[in-house]
């Protein structure tokens, strides 16, 4: 059947499955013959990345044993689709069962790698580590590097910095991945308090000549990490150089500018410190570096004895923090009301659930600017995916709930119609005496046998021929013909001639007539057999129909509470997932608010101190 330009073998299939949709198209191209239409139907949805209906159809076809020609492919396809749909635990179960001996080692290793990656993103560190351990051979180079990094990152996340350092220390080469590895080692070393060792690595990275945008960003990150590590370590002078290497236009520039200012301030160069801090004034107040700079500027001014200017800046900062705090409060209230995530789901089409789903556009509204930061976190992104998936499940169950009600009505109506028709059918069946018809048919067969064996051609004469024969026979019996006169002999000759002609014709047509009647009898026999079969079918249906109704009723009425029960659990999970996302979002916003509150207090104290100084100076003057 339907042919296709899709996948040649399980191997290609899996490779396609484990590749995001955008890349999957490139991996196809070899034809595969679809031998079960139901399998082709699954592919129809799979190729549209509509995984949910594809999985449902595959499960249904499997249940009905309709995939006999694609047993193995179907199983692997199911595993791949589970993976694409984000149903990773079930996918892993299939792969664990099948990968051992059904696919090539390359495909097996690749699959474990992708599973490890997904598990890492979902926080299943133990499982991710286990999946990496299943990889026996060499992965393709780019994946091998990523796998090594993943292994090290798992160790870093688990706080095993030394193990991570050991793992990445032998990293060779000057590729992008080598740079990432160095950065991760540096971060791990800083976190374990080994700043000097980290400094060497991060400095090397921070001084490199990047050949891609990603590496440029990594260089900024390395410089920033190094600068702040040195600042924390009390090496303000050394911190300045890496911080100044951060690009002024990049995402890390605000924090770098702040750090440069603090390095100067640490060295009591407050006038120099003001230069980078003043640069931050026009930037987004959401950035903690900008917020901090609003306090740092008057602090430096005060140190430089510009008391009046410092007071103005503190007042501006207090005002700005107040406004920002109000905005944060409004956003926290909106998120806590639960409306935010509901609106998010309502605005999202929910038509292509899947692992590779990403939020393409931030929701509109004041919250969007805060969420930008949240979306960078794995657990928030993944939590959002789960929330979205649960909303899809909820909607799906709502639709089924309505459908099942309709099916219940339909079944009742059908049952009623059946009960109304049953007496009519029973009467018709009683009237149709098939046994008698069969007897007739057998009797005709016997008669034909006699006619044929006795070559009774007259028996098959048509009505007109028979009438003619009868008329001639009656003429023959006319007494006048017995007279011994020439006229009688002449008539007798004519009668003999007529009889001869008639007999000749009848005998000539006899075989044809036998065949014709036999054929008709045969057809009658077949029709009778058909009628008997139909009768048996009707009788069987009459016997079975009540059982079918009972079985269908059990299923329809049994599924309704199942849907209801599942829907309750989905709703419960949805509200827990919403609470989880709210907790992260509100926690993040609350942390920003707390920071602003702290800054406000600091600003007020500083302002009060300035007023005290001014008041004292005034008294002295008086």
């Amino acid at each position, binding site marked *: *059947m*339907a*042919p*296709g*330009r*899709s996948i040649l073998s399980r191997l290609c299939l899996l490779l396609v499955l484990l590749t995001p949709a955008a890349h999957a198209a490139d991996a*196809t191209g070899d034809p595969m013959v679809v031998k079960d*239409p139901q*399998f*082709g*139907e699954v*592919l*129809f*949805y*799979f*190729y*549209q990345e509509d995984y949910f209906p594809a*999985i449902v159809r595959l*499960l*249904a076809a499997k*249940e*009905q044993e309709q995939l006999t020609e694609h047993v193995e492919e179907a199983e692997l396809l199911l595993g791949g689709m589970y993976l694409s*749909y*984000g*149903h990773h635990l*079930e996918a892993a179960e299939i792969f664990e069962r099948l990968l051992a001996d059904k696919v090539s080692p390359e495909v097996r290793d690749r699959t474990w790698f992708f599973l490890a990656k997904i598990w890492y993103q*979902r*926080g*299943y*560190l133990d499982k991710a580590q286990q999946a990496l351990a299943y990889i026996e051979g060499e992965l393709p180079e780019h994946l091998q590097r990523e796998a090594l990094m993943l292994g090290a990152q798992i160790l870093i*996340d*688990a*706080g095993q*910095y030394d193990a991570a350092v050991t793992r990445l220390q032998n990293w060779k080469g000057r590729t992008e991945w080598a740079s990432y590895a160095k950065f991760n080692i540096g971060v791990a070393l*800083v*976190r*374990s*308090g080994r700043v000097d060792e980290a400094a060497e690595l991060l400095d090397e990275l921070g001084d490199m000549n990047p050949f891609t945008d990603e590496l440029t960003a990594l260089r900024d990150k390395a410089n920033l990490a190094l600068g702040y590590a040195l600042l*924390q*370590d009390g090496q303000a002078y050394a911190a300045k150089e890496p911080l100044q290497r951060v690009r002024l236009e990049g995402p890390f520039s605000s924090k770098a500018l702040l750090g440069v200012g603090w390095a100067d301030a640490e060295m009591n160069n407050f006038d120099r410190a003001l230069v980078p801090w003043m640069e931050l004034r026009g930037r987004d107040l959401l950035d903690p570096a900008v917020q901090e700079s609003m306090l740092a500027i008057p602090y430096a001014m005060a140190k430089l004895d510009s008391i009046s200017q410092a007071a103005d800046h503190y007042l501006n900062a207090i005002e700005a923090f107040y406004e920002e705090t109000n905005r944060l409060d409004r956003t926290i209230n909106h998120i806590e009301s639960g409306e935010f995530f509901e609106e998010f789901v309502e605005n999202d089409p929910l038509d292509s659930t899947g692992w590779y789903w990403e939020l393409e556009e931030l929701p509109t509204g004041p919250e969007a600017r805060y969420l930008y930061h949240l979306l960078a976190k794995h*657990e928030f992104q*993944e*939590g959002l995916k*789960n929330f979205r998936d649960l909303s899809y*499940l909820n909607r*799906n*169950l709502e639709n*089924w709930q309505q*459908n099942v009600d309709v*099916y219940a009505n339909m*079944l009742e109506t059908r049952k009623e119609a059946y009960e109304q028709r049953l007496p009519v059918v029973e009467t018709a069946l009683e009237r149709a005496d098939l046994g008698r018809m069969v007897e007739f048919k057998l009797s005709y067969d016997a008669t034909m046998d006699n006619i044929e064996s006795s070559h009774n051609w007259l028996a098959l004469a048509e009505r007109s021929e028979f009438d003619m024969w009868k008329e001639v026979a009656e003429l023959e019996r006319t007494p006048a013909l017995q007279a011994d006169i020439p006229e009688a002999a002449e008539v007798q000759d004519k009668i003999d001639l007529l009889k001869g002609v008639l007999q000749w014709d009848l005998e000539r047509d006899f075989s044809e007539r036998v065949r014709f009647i036999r054929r008709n009898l045969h057809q009658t026999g077949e029709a009778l057999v058909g009628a008997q079969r139909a009768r048996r079918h009707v009788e069987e249906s009459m016997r079975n129909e009540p059982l079918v109704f009972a079985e*269908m009723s059990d*299923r329809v009425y049994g*599924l309704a509470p*199942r849907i209801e029960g*599942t829907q309750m*659990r*989905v709703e419960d999970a949805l509200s827990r*997932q919403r609470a*989880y996302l709210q907790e992260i979002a509100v926690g993040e916003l609350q942390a920003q608010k707390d920071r602003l509150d702290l800054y406000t207090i600091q600003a007020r104290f500083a302002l009060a101190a300035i007023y005290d100084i001014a008041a004292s100076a005034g008294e002295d003057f008086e």
Partner: protein
Amino acid sequence: MDADAVAAEAREAVAAEASSRDEFRSLDTDVQALKKEVLDLNRDLFLLEEELLFPANSQVAFFVSMDVGEYFELDSVSIKIDGKEVANYLYTAREADALVRGGVHRVHMANLKTGEHEIIAIFTGKGPHVRDYRRGATTVIDKGIGAKYLELEITDRVRKQQPEFVFKEWE
């Protein structure tokens, strides 16, 4: 800040991350279990729906498939059974692409009595040289007892550089 303090801070951060991860994982495990439950439920409902609406004795399923598709870009298919139009399906670009890649679309399900039925399928789309193209195909099926699957297959006739539309029966 000394090295010990940095290390202690790092340990606290790791512990906080681990706790958040555990919470996520617990929720995620529940979501995974629910996904399985809902998928199984959908499977049962899908089968029930099919058996209820299209009992096996009278069921006829119509599938559309494409082989290669060099000479034809499918826009729509309409199906007539015994002179009566029963389905008219307009394909999105995404669906047409899925067909070209080997997917098979169940375009219509019907309940038919046993005996002969005339089926007409009309395909519209873009033919060779991107010209509007409309072709019909006819067949007569003999519906017996038991489900029947009828495939409307669009293939390329390379020699004539034209698409071809054929019926194929599956029992």
